[in-house]
């Protein structure tokens, strides 16, 4: 199967500095990050269906990360969602897991775990 040359990963966080830093990290790791400061911006983007992984903060201005996830589920999104959040909230974590997330990290967690999770997420599923 022909693998796309670029792996698009969406970063959705209302903190610009964080978006920028995360983008740098992903770029170094060989991915193509695109940043969005709100869930609404992301939904409005025409490139949306082509993202292969989403890094989402729970707490966003306007629609929350989890809400976004549920909405995407409704429209048949199959891109895995990885949460990177400031809150250490078990309730949010439970909700996220229920909605089917591919990872749940804190902002202060180290890069290796996050990159590993992303790698898993974008790896092609066996037997198409």
């Amino acid at each position, binding site marked *: 199967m022909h693998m796309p040359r670029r792996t698009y990963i969406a970063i959705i966080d209302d*903190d610009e*500095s*964080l978006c*920028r*830093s*995360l983008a*740098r*990290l992903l*770029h*170094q*790791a060989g991915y193509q990050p695109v940043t969005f400061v709100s869930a609404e911006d992301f939904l409005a983007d025409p490139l949306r269906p082509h993202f292969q992984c989403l890094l989402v903060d729970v*707490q966003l201005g306007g629609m929350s990360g989890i809400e976004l996830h549920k909405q995407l589920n409704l429209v048949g999104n199959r891109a895995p969602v990885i949460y*990177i959040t*400031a*809150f*250490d909230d078990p309730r949010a974590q439970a909700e996220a897991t229920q909605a089917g997330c591919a990872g749940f990290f*804190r*902002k*202060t967690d*180290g*890069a290796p775990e996050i990159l590993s999770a992303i790698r898993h997420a974008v790896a092609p599923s066996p037997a198409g």
Partner: protein
Amino acid sequence: MGKLSLVTVLWSTVAAATLLLGFLHLLRWMADRRARADLAFMVTALGFAGVAFTELWAMHATTPEEWGLAVRWCHPPIFLLTVGIVAFVHFHLGTGRAWLAWTTVGARGVILVWNFVAWPNFNFERIDSIASLSFLGEPVTVVAAAVTSRWQFLGTIASLLLAIYVLDASVRLWRTGGREQRDRAALIGGSMLLFVLVASAYAQLVIFGLMRVPILITPPFLLPLGAMCFEMSRDLLRVGRLTRELRDNQRRLEMAAGAAELGLWEWDGRANRVWATHQARAIFNLAEEDQGDFRHWLERVHPDDRARLVQEMRRALDSGDECAVEFRILAGGAAPRIVLARGRAEPAGPEQPAQVRGVLRDITAQRSAQDETQELRRELAHSGRVWLLSQLTSSLAHEISQPLGAILRNAEAAGMMLETAQPDHEELKAIVADILRDDRRAREVIDRLRSMLKRRAGEHTPVPVDGLLQDVLALVGADAASRGVWIEHVASPHLPPVPGDRVALTQVLLNLALNAMDAVADRPADQRRVLLKAETGREGGVDLCVSDNGQGIPAGLERRIFEPFYTTKSSGMGLGLAISRGIAESHGGTLTCENNGQGGAVFRLFLPAPRETSP
């Protein structure tokens, strides 16, 4: 004589009865030296008995010489009678004129001396013969032929002086006194006047031979004697009634006290003796015989509380004030019981020393209920703090992880870049710039957090300063007692109410008080002192100071202790002072600390006066 002479019987019995009455009143005077009227009555009774006996003697005289002798020996008892009456009027009516009294007594004294110098006596120059007269069915001796002394009219004058003295005193009492005094004046004055007039006139008539009857002073004197007796008895009756009332009152008091489970006590500070009711002794677990010595009572008190108890009692005694002190009583093997003693000092009187008198009550049950309430309140206050804390920490966690997270990602990215053969320098510069910016952001978060602490205030109402102190004292009272800390409070009068959040301010003072109690925990048990003071501050505001005699604050740390998370205790987050300062500042005031002169620290919460115009 075969049969007993009626005259003898009458005169003897009257004399004896009078002496007996006099003796009774003498006893009364000996028991209470202030009852001088009773002593005077005794003297009067003695005089009267003497006169009665000499009259009897005269009536049974067989020779003129004997009769003269009897008359002569009449004078000493008459002198006694005079002294007694004067003294009685002086003490019982209280309105006799002193110079008149002395003149009267002096005149009689002179006559007395004269009487024993002259012969046969003061009244007569010569007694020639006597005669016999029938009196009450038997013969009595009367004077027949005699020459009266020229000077014997002085005796009349002396008697008149006495009458004048008594009358004058009676009239004065009548004029100035109330109903009881008027009755007294009328009785004494009237009867005395009557007697003196009748007796003097009668005596003169006999002496001048116009009447052939024995000179008899005793019958008419029964009038004033009876009056005096009546007056004295009235007092006795009154005493009896008062004693009964007193006993009734005491019984009522003991019953009421018993029902309220109050022990009554009196402490004589000078002799260090205690009077107490049965109930009080029961509370102290003392036997009936064990009362009296204050030291016995003190032995039952917990050693740590003894000094405080004695000091409080002495203070009340010296200042004439009220005292209220709580202390523990040792109860054998069981847990100590808690007793509350309240009392009031009574100043020394003419025959009693200064005392403190009061009630005491076993409040162990009450205290344990209160302790539970206190515990609940403390938990509530604590959970309030905990809630605040959790709010703050989650908000802190969230706000600060953004910049921190960004810094981490940037650093990681830079790390990965630097591992490549040709790292992009421009990108690295951008990364460093971002890191610096985010670091500044993180610090701003902390600053914002601090100002958020300040802004955490409920609604402001005028808070009475004294009430605030009382609340805090109530909250720490039991704690202080069980930790052996002496909490004192002083509030200047007329402090204005301060606009503020009463709960928050209570929280601050509570925090300061608890810290102070922690600070003095190392001091010996009877030297732990915490003082809560409220006084006027600058510009009409209020200073609330909490000072202790602990170790004080180490030099240079006066600012640091207010920083969040600074603590010297093994438990606790170290946020109490930071929060307290935040509350102070949200009220427009300040919270500062310094070392006081006694080695401990003083924390000063300044709250500004209400502004004249509302914002």
